[in-house]
């Protein structure tokens, strides 16, 4: 697989920061075309700053970002942004349309998509996030979770090569979160979509092919989800929830039970408990 995003020795500081202080410190990684990468880290670790450097909302102090073979510069930023769809945590910050369907259509209008096709794509996208019955409502009057669905529908309709989700499921209920993850999996199956998801949600991180851990502006670890989840209680410090099996392990340990040290999925944990109890 070829690389669609390449970040090399990226340093970033906000204008109000002093010269010896950096929010992102020497970050390098690449993402393969079609890969799903989760970026985790606690609040303030620099995750969102990193995302904004990738689509050129912020410009680094030094280092380069290459997207689909193009180095990100003032000249290429518009080309690159066409390839990237971004959904933020608080979608109020990104609504432009007077109605839900206008909002979803916005980027298609910008791309000059013919009206007939636009109508179909907008309708399909809203149906996929289960918001089609809200097409003519005002985005501002929707609930937090509904707004996140509409923002996501905008991305589904626009069909970007790369989707960046910045805590995009944080306001959804568990079912909504599950639906969004399933929708993204469908989008990936239909095209070679690359996903970068910034998240605290363990299920979202588990859906990724690879997890990057950012702490204090540095990339401190990367691995497959199961490798990262082995850390147990230390995951909380990395800004992730503990997987349920790890939480239960900790509770059992407090009761004096000897628990396995390897990472177990929920199913693995259930099997282990069942085997153990059948010995009684």
């Amino acid at each position, binding site marked *: 697989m070829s690389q669609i995003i390449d970040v090399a020795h990226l340093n970033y500081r906000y204008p109000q920061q002093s010269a010896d202080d950096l929010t992102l410190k020497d970050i390098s990684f690449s993402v393969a075309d079609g890969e799903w990468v989760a970026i985790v880290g606690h609040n303030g670790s620099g995750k969102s700053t990193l995302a904004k450097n990738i689509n050129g909302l912020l410009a680094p102090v030094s280092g380069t970002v290459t997207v689909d073979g193009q180095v990100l510069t003032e000249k290429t930023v518009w080309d690159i942004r066409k390839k990237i769809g971004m959904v933020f945590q608080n979608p109020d910050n990104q609504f432009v349309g007077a109605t839900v369907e206008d909002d979803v259509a916005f980027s298609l209008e910008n791309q000059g998509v013919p009206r007939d096709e636009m109508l179909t794509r907008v309708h399909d996208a809203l149906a996929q996030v289960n918001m089609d019955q809200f097409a003519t409502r005002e985005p501002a009057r929707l609930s937090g979770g*509904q707004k996140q669905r509409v923002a996501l529908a905008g991305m589904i309709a626009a069909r970007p090569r790369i989707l960046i989700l910045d805590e995009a499921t944080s306001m959804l209920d568990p079912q909504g979160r599950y639906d969004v993850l399933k929708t993204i999996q469908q989008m990936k199956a239909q095209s070679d979509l690359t996903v970068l998801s910034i998240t605290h949600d363990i299920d979202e991180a588990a859906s990724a092919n690879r997890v990057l851990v950012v702490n204090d502006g540095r990339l401190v670890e990367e691995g497959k989800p199961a490798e990262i989840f082995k850390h147990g209680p230390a995951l909380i410090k990395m800004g992730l929830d503990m997987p349920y099996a790890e939480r239960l392990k900790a509770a059992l340990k407090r009761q004096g039970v000897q628990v396995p040290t390897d990472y177990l999925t929920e199913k693995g944990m259930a099997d282990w408990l069942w085997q153990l109890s059948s*010995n*009684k």
Partner: protein
Amino acid sequence: MAIEFKQVDFTYQPGTPFETKALTDINLTIPDGSYTALIGHTGSGKSTLLQHLDALLKPTSGTVTIGDRVITPTTSNKDLKSLRQHVGIVFQFPESQLFEETVAKDIAFGPQNFGASEADALKTAAKMLTLVGLDANLLGRSPFDLSGGQMRRVAIAGVLAMQPKVLVLDEPTAGLDPQGRLEMMEMFAKLRHEQNLTVVLVTHQMDDVANYADHVIVMDQGRVVKTGAPREIFKDPQWLVDHQLGLPKTTAFAQQLMAKGLTFDPMPLTEDELAADLVQQLPASAFGGAQANDD
């Protein structure tokens, strides 16, 4: 302070093309001193109901009784000040409401609005900042120089500064990392006891409902479909699925174990409850020594 809804209907923008019925025939009681969780699918009407708790919205029909105040469709918007002082609402992303030059002034804004002198209000501000777990040296800082989690705590301090009897929290931990979420939920539990508050929590986190609430109201499509203690609400998993709600992680996991033949009665709601139940069903070899099959 108890709150009671009787036959409340609410319609947004009635008589316009945007007319939307958001609440239908709501009858409920939020008991005085309770920790009430308000749950429901996105768009079920939770946030609309919440805005009735301090008469930001008035019912289209029916009555809302807040303490000894009765709000009807015709209640005047004047003279609601004392009511709003008693019911403090922390909205979603409350940090977006910060506006003052300093943290101290921002927290002091509410009390001054309710007639406190500047000096008194600033004194209250200092107290409230400690209450929400922030250091007093932040008082002189601009709220906009703080981290997201700190900003949210300042906003909450601003609500607490009015010394409400009811604290309403609309998804107060959204966007915080797991460590921040845990700290914030523990803070509310502590505040409830120290300040004798009635707490109303709007949330999607069933684990928070299981861990903190003692009373639950479930909404679906603008109606109240169930009320009761968390254990009653969570004892019928299929019903929750039908209403697009989840189970606490522990209860869901206990169900997996039941499918394998383990038994739980009542269903555990937290991992400590489950661990305690499991201990009864595990052989002695599970404790200490090597993990062996020699039982």
